[in-house]
């Protein structure tokens, strides 16, 4: 199956792209996809633990199964609204 992966924020800089199509084995889960992508981002272990994943614009857990044509977004911790600071 094929899924479209979207990268946002710091992940866009890290992966040097905004989106890409990936071919995955059928029955792959969100966790499988994250394991696959973790390689290039392994230097960012702290960040990787803190990201959320959305499939077709809904937050999902890593056990969720992917389907052909899904839009999978990798979301670093969000920072909308105003700035925090000290």
């Amino acid at each position, binding site marked *: 199956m094929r899924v479209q992966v*979207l990268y*946002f*924020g*710091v992940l866009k*800089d890290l992966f040097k792209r905004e989106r890409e199509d990936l071919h995955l084995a059928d029955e792959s889960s*969100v*966790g499988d996809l*994250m*394991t696959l992508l*973790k390689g290039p981002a392994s230097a960012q272990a702290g960040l*990787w*633990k*803190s*990201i*959320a*994943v*959305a499939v077709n*614009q809904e*937050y*999902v*857990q*890593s*056990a969720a199964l992917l389907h052909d044509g899904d839009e999978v*977004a990798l*979301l*670093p*911790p*969000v*920072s*909308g*609204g*105003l*700035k*925090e*600071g*000290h």
Partner: protein
Amino acid sequence: MHVAITGAVIDTARIMDEIRAGADGAICTFDGIVRNNTRGRQTLFLDYEAYEAMALQQMQGLANEALTKFSVRDIALVHRLGRLHVGESSVLIVVASAHRGAAFDACRWLIDTLKKTVPIWKKEQFVDGAVWADGEPFPEEIVPSSELQK
């Protein structure tokens, strides 16, 4: 209910006028503004970007949830994207209610929850470099919990 993501300047006065109604005893407004520094480091501007379709859907969900949770009459929730300079508004929340307590509570809950769950990010441009702002940790129920994350 008025929920929007915009690239234009947020017109606070107009949005407040539009929401006002006879049944309201209170209108509580939160205006999030670009500050001129972070931890003493001078800010030039912020670039906001979003996973826009999802962000809008999440904002609509939050506004609906707040209407029910706090029993307020109406809500406006607007976030601006793109390049914002010091002193400009990035987010506007307006809550109209019969009583002030619910309006304050809903307003506070909306900004606190938006900052944790709505997929919007900002890159901060300082005089001496740029960084993606540290986000707030996602609520536990959102981060994929898995052995692979160890």
